[in-house]
């Protein structure tokens, strides 16, 4: 074994244009086996285009893409045999049952009956789908459709798994099932790439790439990205959230204040110092509050802060 194992995915300077507009521009990224890489960004940032390029169903205009060392441009067929791509709307056959859908995709990938049965059983059990094997896909809830899509995507043994918005409309319990399966695959050295706009999902990735207008502006682990957050966040728990916000919003060192269910989140330059000042101001203003505590920024906080800053430049 080499010290540095061959990356599962290696994209260099990839650009893709549609009618003169760059959907993806100068993208370079490498993913190691077992990594869960998340592409996050607003609508139209290029997430879906990247997934299609990595799946070798679309060719880049410039740059190179290699999947386990295989050139995706020169050899798309071989690349596709190692990649599984689950688009936003996975093409399930609604009038076929769960089992029949799995059979169909297994045949498509030339999987033996024995291997198929074994994998299907394991995947369906892991996602709590076993009782529904005879149900038609069209009769499944949104969450179950997504889990069936994942099962079909994994019926062969891909080395790279590409998931575009995999859990849109899926409830948290199903989402956990989904991620449990993904964690199992990591152990087998599968590289997983997820495109998502939900922070629930982004927080689960080992690394994130923040996209805007086809460019990757930031790329790092969620923990290290959070250190880029300009300022710190104080959560004020108050039943008089609007008054609390009005009292703190214009104060020195306060960069922003948004209402949340339990009170206000305030972005400040220095949490330790401003917490005391805000506390005093609220007391003077006779605003009832329970506590002020410093909280870790969420990926969404970070996102909005970084991308808004980027736009302003």
């Amino acid at each position, binding site marked *: 074994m080499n010290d540095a194992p061959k990356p599962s995915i290696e994209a260099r300077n990839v650009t893709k244009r549609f009618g003169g507009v760059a959907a993806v521009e100068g993208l370079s990224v490498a993913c190691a086996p077992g990594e869960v890489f998340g592409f996050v960004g607003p609508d139209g940032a290029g997430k879906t285009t990247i997934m299609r390029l990595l799946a070798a169903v679309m060719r880049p205009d410039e740059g190179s893409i290699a999947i386990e060392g295989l050139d995706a441009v020169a050899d798309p067929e071989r690349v596709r045999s190692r990649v599984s791509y689950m688009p936003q709307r996975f093409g399930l056959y609604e009038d076929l049952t769960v089992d029949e859908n799995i059979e169909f995709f297994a045949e498509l990938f030339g999987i033996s009956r024995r291997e198929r049965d074994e994998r299907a059983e394991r995947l369906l059990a892991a996602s709590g789908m076993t009782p529904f094997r005879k149900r038609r896909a069209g009769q499944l809830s949104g969450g179950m459709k997504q889990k069936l899509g994942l099962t079909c995507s994994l019926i062969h043994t891909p080395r790279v798994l590409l998931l575009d918005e995999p859990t*849109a409309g899926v409830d948290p319990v*199903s989402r956990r099932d989904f991620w449990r399966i993904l*964690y199992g695959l990591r*152990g087998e050295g599968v590289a997983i790439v997820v495109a998502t706009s939900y922070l629930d999902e982004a927080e689960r990735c080992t690394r994130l790439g923040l996209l805007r207008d086809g460019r990757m502006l930031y790329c790092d682990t969620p923990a290290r990205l959070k250190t880029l957050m300009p300022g710190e966040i104080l959560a004020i728990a108050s039943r008089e959230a609007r008054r609390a916000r009005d009292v703190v919003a214009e104060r020195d060192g306060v960069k922003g204040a948004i209402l949340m*269910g339990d009170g206000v989140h305030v972005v400040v330059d220095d949490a330790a110092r401003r917490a005391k000042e805000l506390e005093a101001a609220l007391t003077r203003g006779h605003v009832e509050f329970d506590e002020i505590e410093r909280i870790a920024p969420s990926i969404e906080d970070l996102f909005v802060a970084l991308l808004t800053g980027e736009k302003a430049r």
Partner: protein
Amino acid sequence: MNDASAGEIRIVADRLVKRFGDFVAVNEVSFEARRGEIIGFLGPNGAGKSTTIRILCGLLRPTSGKAEVAGLDVARYPERVRENIGYMSQKFSLYNDLSVRENLRFFGGVYGVKGERLSKRLDFAVDMAGLKGREDALVADLSGGWKQRLALGAAVMHEPAILFLDEPTSGVDPESRRRFWHLIYALAGEGVCVVITTHYMDEAEYCNRIALINGGRLIALGSPGELKRSAIRGEILLVEGDDPGAILEALEGVPAARDVAPFGSSLHIVVDDAARDVAAIEARLKERGLSWSKIEPIKPTLEDVFVQLVGGDGARGAAQ
């Protein structure tokens, strides 16, 4: 003032039941919501959230129990209830081949908004959606975030006192979502009572109160903070290490670990007593030769609460 407890009551659900044949979609659901309050319905697919909303909108008659919206009995006065409510679904129900203005006119017309009031409300909705100058753009040409804000504008053309939003932010990006919530708060600030369903915990954090619904029943009701403080049994341990997959597998067999779930690159372990049970967790990891960088008690997240209260069986059972 946003003190929800001080506002007048806008919605009363009193032991609502809805049966479809043998299936009980809504089972004895009772709650109240007030002027200016944002209440979130959270629950797995098929839990009964949408059915409850359809009853409150006067679209479905309850099998038993009573619902009052804007002071009106929904079963007796469904039309008058509908004059007082706005509704927006995840599909946005806008007409793609009509312009922004034409869509708003259409929805205004449906709600009987006419004349000068119509043009005023149209301006308000365009402004709120941030679509000034783009009134003649086709809806088909708008991106998800704009469509969403326009759909919200359409839903409030008639200045409803109560607004129902059914998974309104499915498929929009974080910035658009935040802007959307900003609008929701502005409406609530003017006194609108907002009921919203969502699957996303980050979104639930924006709600003043959360109603957790599972298998047709209301199983918890409280502010996000209240639910995190008191709705959960046991405590949460955060475990971080290089190989979370292997750690997950190793800990699933530890009796003290009542539940183990991946969470980011770390794991959340539910235990009865964090101080006591940490030893059993460490022992198992050592036994398997797994290293860890962190094991510490943390406050439960809303997702921890949701998963514990709803549980695996609930989510699956509800779909049957």
